[in-house]
């Protein structure tokens, strides 16, 4: 079981309570698709992904980015059992969506960069440590049911 300090819980809760899910979700997913273009393989049915501009204007991608970020809410509300909270989602990504779990890390890194840009100097070392710990637990849980 993952141990969280009071400080870590406070930091993670604070980030989410100030989060614009639509803005950050859209920016993070778009950044992932642009910086790591091979991730586009999972978005064949999402319309035009021809270049950075079309990706950034794509409403289906924007909506999906928001959906992903709201998915993180589940981890936030169940921080003491993220592993089981995501068991079903993990199976979905493995058996139905067939997503290489390494992609979770790529998206997590893009999310970190977008949050850093949004928070600026408030994204301190301590904040980054807590944030990346949270994301690494999420990423691990999402990859856990692959078989």
């Amino acid at each position: 079981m993952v141990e969280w300090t009071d400080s870590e819980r406070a930091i993670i809760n604070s980030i989410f309570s100030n989060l614009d899910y639509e803005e950050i979700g859209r920016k993070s997913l778009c950044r992932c698709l642009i910086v790591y273009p091979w991730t586009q393989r999972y978005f064949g049915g999402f319309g035009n992904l021809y270049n950075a501009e079309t990706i950034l204007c794509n409403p289906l991608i924007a909506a999906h980015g928001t959906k992903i970020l709201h998915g993180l809410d589940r981890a936030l509300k169940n921080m003491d059992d993220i592993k089981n909270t995501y068991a079903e989602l993990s199976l979905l990504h493995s058996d139905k969506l067939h997503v290489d779990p390494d992609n979770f890390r790529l998206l997590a890194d893009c999310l970190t960069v977008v949050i850093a840009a949004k928070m600026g100097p408030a994204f301190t070392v301590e904040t980054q440590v807590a944030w990346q710990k949270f994301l690494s637990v999420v990423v691990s849980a999402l990859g856990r049911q692959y078989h």
Partner: protein
Amino acid sequence: MSLTPKDKATVKLFWGRMSGKAELIGADALSRMLAVYPQTKTYFSHWKSLSPGSPDVKKHGKTIMMGIGDAVTKMDDLERGLLTLSELHAFKLRVDPTNFKLLSLNILVVMAIMFPDDFTPMAHLAVDKFLCALALALSEKYR
């Protein structure tokens, strides 16, 4: 994943804006890496302190950024330009190459904080490609 002329121009542009704060940026990126990925601390057991403000961290952050700045001037042939540094990392430092990725991510984080509007996805792509190419050239002599 080789660098296009546009990638190179983007990297040079950002580097121009960062070179004056090399020590600060390097120290910040290094501090973040040591904190977020504690396993990286194993390479610095000889330092008195690994805390963000420590002289060792500041000095080494600057050393790293000077190295990267040098690589920016040698972007057209990184393998040849970084030969000596590669030998240093291969035979003396023996840093596991996976760690280059960890420092790279933190350099990107610092850049995002410094340039929230200008560090667009395309700029991120160019710098990430450059740092990957740099890491590859740095590990050239490993085996």
